[in-house]
Structure formats: C-alpha cells, structure tokens
C-alpha cells in the first residue's frame, strides 16, 4: 500500500449510558495519503463528528475512546501524554470547526486569538512580528488586514469561517479536519470558503478530512469518500467510483436521493430512520431499511472487505 500520513485503525468510541454502552464509532479504519482530500459523509448521528473529535483525542465524558489507534506518520497518538497530545493539536492535526458555531472567543480580537495559538505552541511573537504573521495568514484566507483588530461579532459568517481557517493553518499542520465547515453559510459563501480551504490545503501540502452530509459538496471537493452509518464506515471508494457505481445499498440510496437536472420529478428519500445507537438491530445495522436485505443480513454483521487498493465495503451483497 502507498504512503500514508494519517491512519485510523479499528477506532471505537463509546458513550456510557445508564441503559448500556452506546458505540458512536464502531471499528472504523481508514488511511489518508499526503495531500489527499478525504470525505466523511453520513446522516446526523452516524458518528462523523465524534470521529473527528476522537482523532484529536477530544472525546469528553461520558464518552471515551474504547479502542483502536490513530497514527500520524509514525506517531501513535494513544501513546502520547496529555501535553504532547496538546502540542500535536493544531501543529500536527488542525480542526476547522462547523460553520454554524460560535467558534471564536467573543471578547478577544482575531489577532490575539491567532496569537494565543502561536504562543501556546512555543511561537512567542510580539508586536510587529506578530502583526506581520497575522496579516500573512489573513491574506492567505482572503481576509483584509484590518480584520486582525476586529472582534468576531464585527465579522460576517463567511469571514468568521475564514478566520477559523487562518487559525487552523497557522502552524502548517499535516492534516486538517474540517467538520461541516460551511454549514449555515449560503451557497455563494459556501463555494468561496471551500475554494479558500482547498487553496490553503494545496499551499500547505496538507491532507484534509471533510466531514459533512452534503453529497454535492463532497462530489466537487474530495478525492475519496467514506460513508458512515450507525457508527460504522460502510463504504470507502474514490469519489468518481462511488458516485457512478456505489457498492453499498445505503450509498446507492443516498446518491439516488440527490435531485438531478436531467431527471425531473419527485425527490426520492431513504425510507425509515437511522437506528438508535442504543438499540442497534442485529446483523447489518442498515438491514431494516435495505430493499435487498436477506436472511444473512438480519443475523450476521458484515465485515469490512477490501475492494482493490483504495476501496472497502461492509456489505454481504456487494
């Protein structure tokens, strides 16, 4: 297999619940090549965001990482102590937060929020040196220099998201995890922000994990797409293959649900609801909604199988 920059191995995240353990991420493995754009798509509650947090080891109680390993290059993250892990956040793996969130401190100027990040990673810049660094970073994400002096409430949603990207790239990370970076932004701004994200990723030579549920956005942006369902990564394939020839029935129905310009008419959805993680059906978690489900699907949990070099699927029928 080719060189990888980030490798997630059999990662499991559980939430302790009074009525039993809920597994939000169940045995997920995938790997990221340098410069690769990897998409992670799925319904709400499928474990995408939990995955993102688990990679950064930021799962909070009652959640916990139950098992598995994340490798950044040759470093196993579970072996790092708290302070080394802290230092690795942003410098090694950076996060771009959800667009709908108030991810910037409301009472601190943008310049100082970048300065904080630099200072706590040992880059103690002051005065003019800091101002120059901040101006460069803002320019990289297409923001004018006067944004440095501003507070978050003085910026628009798109500008705030750019500011977050500027923070995320300030230490030139190897991997960027963008968790629905354009949610709550309108499509025009969404396109601009995604272009910015794509450009800085190329400048940095970083790999990126794009978490989201917008299949159209995924199709335009990522090289490879992973589909999550009920905490499991049910299919991974290069984006072209997965759009034209999805292997997992869930992926297929997901793609069929997209409205198309050629075929007008009613919108098609996937009947049923995503299952409660607390009460997963036996066998394949998708079988109650799957039109092709067989007896085997109802009783036996499908294993993840490799389909060529960069594709996997977890389905008895594929």
């Amino acid at each position, binding site marked *: 297999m080719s060189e990888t920059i980030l490798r997630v191995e059999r990662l499991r995240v559980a939430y302790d619940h009074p009525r039993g353990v809920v597994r939000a991420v169940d045995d997920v493995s995938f790997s990221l090549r340098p410069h690769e754009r990897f998409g992670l798509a799925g319904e709400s509650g499928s474990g995408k965001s939990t995955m993102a947090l688990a990679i*950064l080891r*930021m799962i909070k109680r009652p959640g916990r990482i139950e098992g598995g390993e994340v490798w950044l290059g040759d470093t196993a993250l579970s072996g790092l102590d708290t302070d080394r892990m*802290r*230092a*690795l*956040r*942003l*410098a090694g793996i*950076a*996060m771009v*937060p*959800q667009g709908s*969130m*108030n*991810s*910037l*401190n*409301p*009472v*601190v100027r943008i310049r100082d929020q970048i300065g*904080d*990040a630099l*200072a*706590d*990673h040992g880059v103690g810049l002051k005065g003019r040196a800091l101002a120059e660094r901040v101006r460069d970073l803002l320019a990289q994400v297409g923001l004018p220099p006067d944004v440095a002096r501003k*507070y978050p*409430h003085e910026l628009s949603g798109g500008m705030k998201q750019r500011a*977050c990207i500027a*923070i995320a790239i300030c230490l030139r990370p190897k991997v960027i995890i963008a968790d629905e970076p354009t949610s709550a932004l309108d499509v025009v701004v969404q396109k601009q922000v995604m272009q910015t994200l794509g450009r800085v990723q190329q400048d940095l030579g970083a790999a990126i994990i794009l978490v989201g549920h917008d299949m159209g956005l995924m199709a335009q942006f990522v090289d490879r797409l992973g589909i999550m369902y009920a905490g499991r990564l049910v299919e991974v394939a290069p984006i072209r293959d997965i759009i034209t020839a999805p292997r997992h029935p869930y992926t297929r129905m997901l793609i069929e649900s997209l409205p198309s310009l050629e075929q007008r008419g009613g919108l098609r959805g996937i009947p049923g609801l995503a299952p409660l993680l607390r009460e997963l059906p036996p066998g394949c978690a998708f079988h109650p909604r799957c039109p092709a489900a067989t007896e085997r699907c109802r009783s036996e949990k499908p294993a993840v199988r490799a389909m060529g070099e960069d594709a996997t699927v977890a389905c008895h029928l594929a």
Partner: protein
Amino acid sequence: MGLYFVAKRFGVFLVIVWLAATLNFFLPRLSGDDPVANKLMEQASLGGYAQAGIAEMVKVYNQHFGLDKPLLTQYLNYVGNVAHGDLNYSIANYPRTVVDMIAEALPWTVGLLGMTTLVSFALGTFLGALLAWPGAPRWLQWFMPPLWALHAIPFFLLGLVLMWLLAFQFQILPIFGGHSPGAKVGLTVGFVLDVLRHAVLPSLSIVLVSVGGWALAMRGMMVTTMGEDYVTFAEAKGLRSLTIFMRYCMRNAILPQTTALALALGQILSGAVLVEVIFGYPGIGALLFQAIQENDFFVIQGVVFTVIVGLGFATFLLDILYPWLDPRITYRRS
C-alpha cells in the same frame, strides 16, 4: 471616541442624583413632624431646659436652619446647597455639619465593606470558576459545602457567633469599635494595626457569608461557558489548560459577575447598618442608625443622599467600563 457616550451616561447620573435629592427633601417633610421642637421637647423632658422658652427657641432654631421659610424657597435653597456640597447642620449635634459627620464616617464604611466586598468577589469568583473546572484539585469539593451553608446564614448572626467565640471566649480580638478608644488617630503603624485588628471580626463575618454566593453564581456561568463552541475550538487549537481556563472560560463567564459586583459595591453604604451597629463600627451605617434614633432630619437626609450618589456612581462606572469588558456592547449609537 466614546466621549459622547460618557457624557450622556454622566448626564443620566446627574439626573438620578437630582431626583434623589428632591425625593430626599420632600419625603421627610410629609411626616409633619417638627424635628427641632421634638428635639427640644425631648431635652426638656429630660430636665435640661426650662419649659417656658421652648417656643422661642424653636423659632430661633428654625430660622437658623431655614425651616421657617416657604417650602419652595426651602427646596431651592436646599438644591443650591446640595450642589455646593452643603448638607446643612446636624440637629442633634448642632454645631457639627452633616458633611463633616459623613466625611468622618465614610472612610470606615468604604474601607470595611468595600474591601470585604472586593475580597469576597475575587475569592468567590475564582473558587466558583475552579469548581466547574475538571482539572481542579479535589479538596475544593470538601471546601465548598460549608461555605454554601454559611451563605444561607444572615451575616449578623454569624457575626455574633464569631464575636462570642473570638472576642469573648478566647479574647484574641477586640469586641467593639473601629479602633481602640483613646488611640491617637493618624497614619502610624500602631494605629493601622489597631484598625486592622478591629476590622477582622466584621470582615470575617461578611466574607464567610458572601463568598459562597459569588462562587455559586460563577460556577453556574462557568459551566455554561465551558459548553460554548469557542472553548471546544480553543482545545482543538491545542491551547494550554491555563489559557483556556483564564482567557476563554473565565474571561467570558465573569461578565455577569461584574454587573453583580457593581451593584454590590453600590449597596455597601446601605448594607452597612447591621454590621456597623453590631460591631460598633464608626461608619455610615452606625451614623444613620443613630440619626434615626435621634430623629436627626438632616443627617438622615445626608446619609440617604450619599447612599444614592454611591449607587448612581457605581452604575455610572459600570456603564463606562462594560464596553471595555465586553466589546459587543459599544459606545456607538445604534
């Protein structure tokens, strides 16, 4: 840049002071009592003066205090005097002026209650913030419940218990007053230490009772703040715990606390009565208490006026400082 804003707020402050002064003038006069006559009658009944000359004396004194003029003239005189910082004479301690008496009492009250309020605020806010913090030391969990229990007790009750214990049983602290009787007042080491020794009991009872309240409020705010997205992002930025705690959590959680602090500071003058009476502290509360007992019109008016100015000024300061604390509140007109 904010000059207009400051001027506007100061104008509001002046209007409050004027309204207060006006109310302060008319309210006592609604009672229909004649404080001078009352005072003289009281003294006469104690056997000090001859009954015969009383009517005469009332007239003379009323002239002196300006109480014989029509109400409107009195009011205009009063407003003019107040504007010049003249709050008239004390009726009970005649040759002394009210301003003098307040000026003498004010430093004691501001010193004792101002300091204790600030100390309880700082202590309570920090403890409350730590309580919400997962990385805080374990012993805090055992430290706080007693403080919450104390918070439910009125501080004068705690004050009496402490007084009994520390001043009466063990006799390590003075039981009464702001300084030892007969001590030479001045900025000498001996006098300062004496004042501090006298301040321990009242301070302790106030601080012990109020720290729990500040801590409780801060803990609530802190828990809310720690759930904010910017705290999650701060962690993802790989910031040090200390940076996240101070600059991202506390800095935001403290905003409502600051409002409460300004209001608490404005209320120290009116809240002083009980502590000062119990501990015989020579502050503004004790002065007010005494003036009410003696029906000393002008002193009561003077103290109430001072209290209102204090509250108004605290609110004014808060208004000025808040945009600086929270940039989302701006000087600009919307």
